[in-house]
């Protein structure tokens, strides 16, 4: 150790990862007590005790490991082995540690220093995306590495927030479920490039891997293992973010959750975590306490720090997918129930108060306000013209 693995081992590891049908578990077994170069030679010769896949010997004998390594070098992807000093220290000794970790960007971004994972659902509400973005930004500003999975929704918002605090100490780290040259979902490719430039994008599947169902839950264990604390922002019952929380709990890593409306399906999982005893997160201060960067019993931060005009990073992410929400999320009035109705008239006030906290469909608004449809239409569109609400297809929410 110390000097790192030999080029032959790196090339062998790169070649092994790319074998057809290779999984993290099989790879770990292949490299259990073999050096990568030896394991590769044994697989190619068909004499590795764990190398039973009938396809492997044929593929391996026709593959030159050095050429594979060159391909990774050309793509700017580092091949990290646990013996490499740049391999994340948090993963060394982890029971589910990837035997080979691929890295786009700065391999040392993930360590040392504190790291917090921000995870959650792909179909997030504007509330969840705002909270994730604020936490990402504030944690990055506080020098904490933000770890996430580059999925839609919470993941993307968290990293967009972290990137918005660019130039400060905390660096974004992403763990992808696809090959490092396959940004997925494609709408996140700019964000993907931004994270790779400012920090690192990690993966355990080879270049060119398409999105596969099992790969995303598998990478969740790496997200959990890389973090000091896992923050679940918004999550449905049985959602994928709960897998991350479970992986963290098994490793003794604290899980904290952002409370949400009891009516919102997107907050059922997180509210359930709170019931199960996870600490609630109100703002970045609670997370910093959990990572021991701040002391409990602190004063609440001034409102300005929480609700400052949010940078364009989230706006960019959101506007690419949400035609009904131009200009990105403004967090100022997001707190449920607050704020006077910006339009005169009782119908408008009824609509405004019914929209506190969560978006509602037109039918739900009609039921909540009891207004005749003519008046409801007039009130909604009046609020829309005043810029106070946003209209989606069949639903409305406060801006």
């Amino acid at each position, binding site marked *: 150790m110390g000097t790192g693995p030999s080029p032959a081992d790196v090339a062998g590891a790169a070649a092994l990862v790319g074998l057809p049908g290779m999984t993290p578990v099989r790879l770990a077994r292949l490299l259990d007590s073999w050096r990568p170069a030896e394991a590769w030679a044994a697989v190619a010769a068909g004499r590795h005790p764990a190398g039973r896949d009938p396809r492997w010997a044929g593929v391996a004998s026709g593959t030159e490991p050095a050429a594979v390594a060159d391909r990774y070098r050309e793509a700017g992807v580092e091949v990290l082995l646990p013996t490499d000093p740049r391999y994340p220290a948090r993963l060394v000794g982890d029971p589910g540690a990837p035997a080979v970790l691929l890295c786009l960007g700065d391999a040392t971004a993930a360590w040392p220093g504190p790291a917090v994972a921000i995870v959650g659902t792909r179909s997030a509400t504007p509330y969840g995306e705002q909270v994730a973005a604020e936490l990402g930004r504030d944690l990055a500003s506080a020098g904490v590495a933000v770890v996430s999975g580059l999925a839609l929704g919470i993941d993307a918002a968290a990293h967009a927030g972290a990137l918005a605090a660019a130039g400060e100490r905390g660096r974004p780290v992403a763990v992808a479920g696809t090959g490092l040259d396959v940004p997925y979902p494609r709408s996140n490719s700019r964000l993907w490039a931004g994270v790779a430039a400012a920090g690192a994008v990690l993966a355990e599947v080879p270049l060119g891997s398409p999105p596969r169902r099992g790969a995303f839950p598998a990478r969740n264990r790496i997200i959990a293992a890389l973090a000091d604390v896992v923050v679940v922002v918004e999550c449905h019952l049985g959602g994928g973010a709960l897998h991350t929380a479970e992986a963290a709990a098994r490793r003794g890593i604290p899980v904290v959750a952002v409370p949400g409306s009891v009516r919102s399906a997107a907050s059922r999982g997180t509210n359930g975590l709170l019931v199960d005893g996870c600490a609630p997160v109100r703002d970045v201060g609670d997370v910093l306490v959990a990572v021991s960067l701040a002391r409990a019993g602190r004063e609440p931060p001034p409102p300005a720090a929480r609700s400052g005009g949010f940078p364009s990073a989230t706006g960019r992410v959101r506007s690419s997918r949400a035609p009904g929400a131009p200009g990105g999320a403004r967090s100022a009035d997001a707190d449920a129930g607050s704020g006077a109705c910006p339009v005169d008239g009782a119908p408008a006030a009824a609509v405004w108060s019914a929209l506190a906290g969560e978006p509602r*469909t037109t039918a739900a608004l009609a039921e909540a306000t009891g207004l005749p449809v003519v008046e409801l239409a007039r009130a909604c569109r009046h609020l829309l013209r005043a810029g106070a609400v946003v209209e989606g297809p069949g639903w409305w929410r406060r801006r």
Partner: protein
Amino acid sequence: MLASIPSAVLHGVDGIPVAVEVHVSNGLPGFTVVGLPDAAVRESRDRVRAALLSTGLPWPLRRVTVNLAPSGFRKGGAGLDLPIAVGLLVAAGELAPVSVDGLAFAGELGLDGSLRAVPGALAVAAAVAGATVVLPEASASEAFGAVPGEVRCASHLGELVTRLRAGQPLRRPAPAPVVPDTAPAAPDLAELRGQALGRRALEVAAAGGHHLLLVGPPGSGKTMLASALAGILPTLPPPVSLEVRLVRSAAGLAAEPGTRPPFRAPHPGASAVSILGGGAPGLRPGEISLAHGGVLFLDEMGEFPAAVLDALRQPLEEGRIRVCRARATVELPARFVLVGAMNPCPCGEGGTPGACRCSAASRARYGRRLSGPLLDRFDVAVRVERPGGTALVGAEGGEPSVTVAGRVAAARAQAAARGVRTNAELPAADLDRLAPVDGTARDLLAAEVGRGALTGRGLVRVRRVARTIADLAGEPGPVGSDHVEEALLLRCRRDLLLGGDR
């Protein structure tokens, strides 16, 4: 010995006159039917023979040739049994030709000589104008009083022959029972709790003849709403009522006179022919024709085969469906209000952001099940919700259907004064003349088009719906901004089906 008996066969919903010519001559005993008979007609030889023998009449042991004229098109159905039997009796000398003079026959024979009902008796009776038509007792009442000619009936071949031989008058059928209009009652709107938006959408759809799309999770009452629509549509005017009876009669359903608009809800698994009409050789009317004058409800619309949904576009446009087959083409009436119901997304929970967990790709796939051109036919679309607790137990029921139907009828009368059947048929080119908008409404619409929320085609649909809303409000003047605002709220947008939050 030759006899020619007038009859008719069913083609779509129309009867086509057929002369049944029977020739009996010496020669090797045999029985041949020519003139493009289908399998059911060829089988009539055996039914006729058994019926004659059971009735105590002789079967001529001579050469029998039956010709169905005109011979150019294929004739189907068992309704030719009776004319063949009567023709045979006349040609064989068992009946005097004068006794069947001026009579036409249609009906199916049982082996015991009894006369069985035939589908489309109404159309068949209408086709043999000029003659007195003799029908089986079971089908005669539906034709009685609905056709210009005389209708007589019999229940058994023996009875018929006895009366004809004796020169006795044939029986008149009993008039069809008048079914009270409350019989297959649609659910009353008063039974619906909550659903203010869905209720209003129904009223607008009924008043303007606008096709309606209901999007909502399972259990949100889409089916209930759709079936309540039939209860607020205006009653059928006599010509439409007759068309409805013709279609029902041709489909072999009870065809009593009535003015209640039909409600048909075919299952997504139904075959294309059963929904659109067709089938050899009579080209039976399908569900869309049975819905003529009323409501066609397609629940789980995305589950219907794409070919069926696309074939709906022509009837939605023209109010008729042309069923074309290699040998024949028929036009069937099919002017209905289409009510489609769909879940917002595969999991059914979509609506507001965060509510649904389907992936964007699966939602997009689901939304694509309705093609753009079909979605364009829906003027009104609303998301409906499961009613909340307060609405379900609230003491206050909604407005009853009678009140709403009154407004609908008044609104339709205003549309009729404009020279169109319904506002949904207002021609796009004449909107400024027939349905002008006032200044503020014009500015509002221009602003919506300006911000890209309305396309040209969407603008036309919003203006038609706004006119209907103004008619419902009793507003004779130009369409105002309030009406336009409501029409905008009720308009159909493609993204309603894409889960809504992406």
